[in-house]
Each structure stands twice: as C-alpha cells, then as structure tokens.
C-alpha cells in the first residue's frame, strides 16, 4: 500500500481539485482529507457519513474562584500570557499545566478539550477519512496524524493499493504531520512569484523529512516566464515536473457542480490530470 500526499505551500493552487480527480481515477483508493481546519474535499466527493468520533486533545486550565487567593503566581509564570485578572483565556492557554502545578491553594485544574471530530464516510470512489478541527482549537497536527492512521487501517482492511491525502497549506505542524512517512509528495504550484517562493519552502520540508516529491505547475499559462523559472528550479533540485496544466474555468464549473473535473468534463484538462495521475502511479511504483 502506497500513500501520496498533495501539498503546495501556498494555498489555493488547486490541491483539492486534483485530489478529487485522483479519487475518481484511482477507483478503490482510501482518501484522507488532512486539511482539518478548512476541509473542502467533501464538496467534490459528496460523502455519506458512516462514523463520527470525538477528538479529545490537549487541556485548558480552569481557576476555581472560591479557592483562588489571587496571589498572582500563575499570572507571573504563564509564558503564554493566558491568565489575566485571575481568569484563564482559553484561546491563549496552551494546556501546559504549569499553573495547576504551582498554585499554592490548588485552585487550578486542567480539563480535557473536545478539540474536534473525525469521520469515516463512503464516497462513490472509496472510503474517506476526514475531520473538523473545533473552532479556534489547537493540535491540528495530532488530528492529521489520527486521520492518516485511520486511513492506513482502512486501507489495510480493504486491501486498498493507495491512500490519497489532501494536505493543508503552509509548512508547519499539520503539513509535517501530513508528510511524515508518506511515499510521495505531489507539490501543486502556480507560476506566480508567491507560488515559487512557497514551493521552495515546502520542497525544503519534503527534503528535510526525506519524502520524494513531484511538482505540478497548475495554471501554467498565467505567466510562462515564471513557469520556466519553476522548471529550471526543479531541474536544479533534481525534482521532476510531472505536469503543466493550463488555466481552465472548467475546474471551477466542476467545483460548482460538486464533481471532480475528470467526471464533469472530458476536455483537455481532464486528460492532462489523467496523465498526471499515471505519472504519480509510476513514481509510487518506484
């Protein structure tokens, strides 16, 4: 069983549209939406929810007013400035528990956070593991790790050959969590200076964690000079540019219709995405 994760560094380059199409092309893969704080894959796959689970993670401090003598030690020691006027700001609290350990009157207790939910759903193309981080919650990396673990279990159980993961933007905690131990990262970029800058950083993360990468230049015709620059950069890094996909409003129309573009239309973009998926399979077979 092989896992490909689709990342981009910069947001909005087309990760989810590609993953939706790969899901349709792969037939029987397990799908994982690792963008747990702004998940969109379900909008293309129209899942029917089979299981819903709570995600408990991290803690928040609570001060019992009747026991608090307002000595101020907790406020003084909290590195996250989470205690003001002898009250805990749950958004700033990082759950380290330091305050609860040093409070002379034991007025502070730590309570577990319900930090989100995760789901297993059926789609036309295979099982989908996805999640929803609670509003303003932390620990997105842990929730991503949980989604991937469930996807792996599911793939083993179903005898699926592939896991296709839709990754989050950025390079921090949830990205690292999406990437570690994957067989391949497909990096979707766009020919803008921002896209190039962000590609370099996310490729750096792949190299740091030793995950092989392929690059796809989406909307390559928006700026062909920049496209050439990306190609030269990839060449210098020994990374293959697997596809150059033109800008095509069919992709947005398919999204509005709630369908992967390869199902929505049989035009040029669909064929190019099919060819890209074949190259992804070839890389995974290596």
């Amino acid at each position, binding site marked *: 069983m092989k896992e490909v994760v689709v990342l*981009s*560094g*910069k*947001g*909005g*380059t087309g990760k*989810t549209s590609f993953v939706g199409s790969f899901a349709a092309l792969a037939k029987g893969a397990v799908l994982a939406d690792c*963008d*747990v*704080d*702004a998940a*969109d894959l379900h*909008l293309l796959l129209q899942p029917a929810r089979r299981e819903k689970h709570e995600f408990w993670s991290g*803690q928040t401090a609570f001060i019992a007013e009747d026991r608090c003598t307002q000595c101020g030690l907790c406020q003084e*020691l909290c*590195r996250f400035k989470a205690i003001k006027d002898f009250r805990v700001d749950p*958004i*700033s609290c*990082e*759950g*380290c*528990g*330091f305050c609860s*350990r*040093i409070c002379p009157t034991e007025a502070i207790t730590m309570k577990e956070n319900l930090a989100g939910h995760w789901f297993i759903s059926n789609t036309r193309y295979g099982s989908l593991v996805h999640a929803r*981080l609670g*509003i*303003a*919650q*932390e620990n*997105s990396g842990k929730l991503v790790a949980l989604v991937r673990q469930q996807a792996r279990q599911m793939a083993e159980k179903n005898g699926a050959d592939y896991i296709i993961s839709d990754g989050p*933007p*950025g*390079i*921090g*905690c*949830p990205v*690292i969590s999406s990437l570690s131990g994957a067989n391949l990262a497909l990096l979707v970029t*766009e*020919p*803008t*200076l*921002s*896209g190039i*800058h*962000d590609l370099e*950083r*996310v490729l*750096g*993360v792949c190299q*740091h*964690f030793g995950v092989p990468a392929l690059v796809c230049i989406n909307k390559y015709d*928006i*700026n062909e000079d*920049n496209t050439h620059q990306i190609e030269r950069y990839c060449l210098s890094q020994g990374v293959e540019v697997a596809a150059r996909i033109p800008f095509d*409003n069919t992709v*947005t129309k398919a*999204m*509005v219709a*709630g369908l992967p573009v390869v199902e929505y239309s049989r035009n040029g973009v669909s064929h190019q995405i099919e060819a890209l998926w074949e190259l992804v399979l070839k890389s995974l077979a290596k």
Partner: protein
Amino acid sequence: MIISVASGKGGTGKTLVATSLALSLKDREQVQLLDCDVEEPNDHIFLKPVITISEAVCIPVPEIDEKKCNYCGKCAEVCVYHAIAVFAQHVLVFPQLCHGCGACSYLCPEKAITEVGREIGVVECGHSDGVEFAHGKLNVGEAMPTPAIRRVKAKANRDGIVIIDVSPGTSCPVVESIKDSDFCLLVTEPTPFGLNDLILAVETVKELKVPFGVVINRAGVGDGKVEEYCLREGIPVLLTIPLDTEIARLNSRGITLVEGMPQWKKSFIGLFDRIREITGERSCSAKW
C-alpha cells in the same frame, strides 16, 4: 487600529488586499504592514522592503546539567508535551516537541535545568516606500509558528494603522494572528470552496469577538452563493474585485494591484472608510 486580513481558504487574495490596503493608506496615515503568515510569507515579494533589523525567534528549551541531576523524573512527569524522557542514568530532551512553558526548570528539585534559546525562525523589520514593514519566517522543518507570530505582532504600533496578513485556515496560527484586532477582513472567492471556508472563518472571528466584513475576490468565477450567504447573515461585503486576467498577471509578477492599476486606490480608501465607520459605530454603541 489593527486590521487583520484572513480567509479560511488559501489563495483567495489576502496578500493582494493587505498590500494594496497598506499602500493606499500610506499618504493619509501612519501605516504598518505585518505579515504574520510566517509559514509562507509573501508580502515582501510585493513590497520589496528594505530590511533594517533581523532578529532570531527563539523558544526556551531545557538543558539538563547532568552533574546536578539525580534522575528523579520530575521534569518528564510535568512535561505534557513529552519533550523529556528520563532514564536510569540519562536524560533525553526532544527540543522540537518543547513549547517553552518553563515548568520543568521551575519544578526541578535539584535546580539542574536551565533554559537555552532554540532558534525556530526570524523576524525581519524594515520599510518600503512609506510603509513600515515586518514579517516572520519560520525555519523550514519547524512545526510551531505561533511564537514567531507573537514576535511579529509585538512590533505593532496601535497609534497608526496596523495591517496584519494572516495565514490560511482557522487553527492556532490564525487565532494568534487575528486576536486583539479591531477589525478582520475575510477575503473569499465566490466558489463552493470559498464559501465553505468563509463560513468556518466567520465562526472563528465570532469566537474571537472581532468585528468583520468580507472582500469578494475574483467575482464572476463561480456562483452567487457567497453573496447570498453574506446577505442572509447580515455580513457586510465591503469590496468586490472582479475576475480579471490583467489582475492575475500583475499578481503573478509580484506587482500590487494599486501599483499596477492605480484606479483601485480609491476603492481601498473607501474600504478603509467603511471599516472605520463600522468600528466607530461599534465603539459608540458599546459605550451606551
């Protein structure tokens, strides 16, 4: 006054709005642009600032003096992040897991722990054509952006106009960037993904109790459901930017909208005046 620019979905045009807003206001106000998307900062590509100060962002991590340590295991017990493991004759520290809370060093009975700075990124400050600028850059391979975001935000000077460019999503880096703002602009696009993520972003700013409004970018690309949603929820749509290949081309070359198409400056000043109206109204009604 602090205005943060967020979105939920990535790639909707936060950087476009933040940079053009800053440049449109600089002749009228003292303007600071703080790029808090420390994972993928892009504002500098458009503003090309002259960087005058560069400071390392460090988080305090424990260093064990094994001469003093008696391997009692207290430090490992108090560390909820599992960043310390204590063996019979050895202590292992995993600095990447450490959040720098300081519990281990404070609670060590033998006073065997000191904290040393571990660099996770950098904050750079400078200026660009009348706009004060600062951004953070998380080192590649580092997981925790929030300490770098805090350091960028510490540069904010509330006497002037502070514009904060936020990373996509709705989780901790976004919350850290938006909180304490006087207003939040949510930039979206009229597509199903844009709407889905806008709704999540709205929930987040409501939780933070920050007043907000919407900017619709690439209007005409998808459907009308974002506008319907805003209308239904009573959320003001403060600016609409059409889908336009010329705007996309400028953006791809790292040119801000108001530089490439100066006629837009008026719209961004209008956007700011609307924000001022809304926040002014709010503070008045709060008083009464």
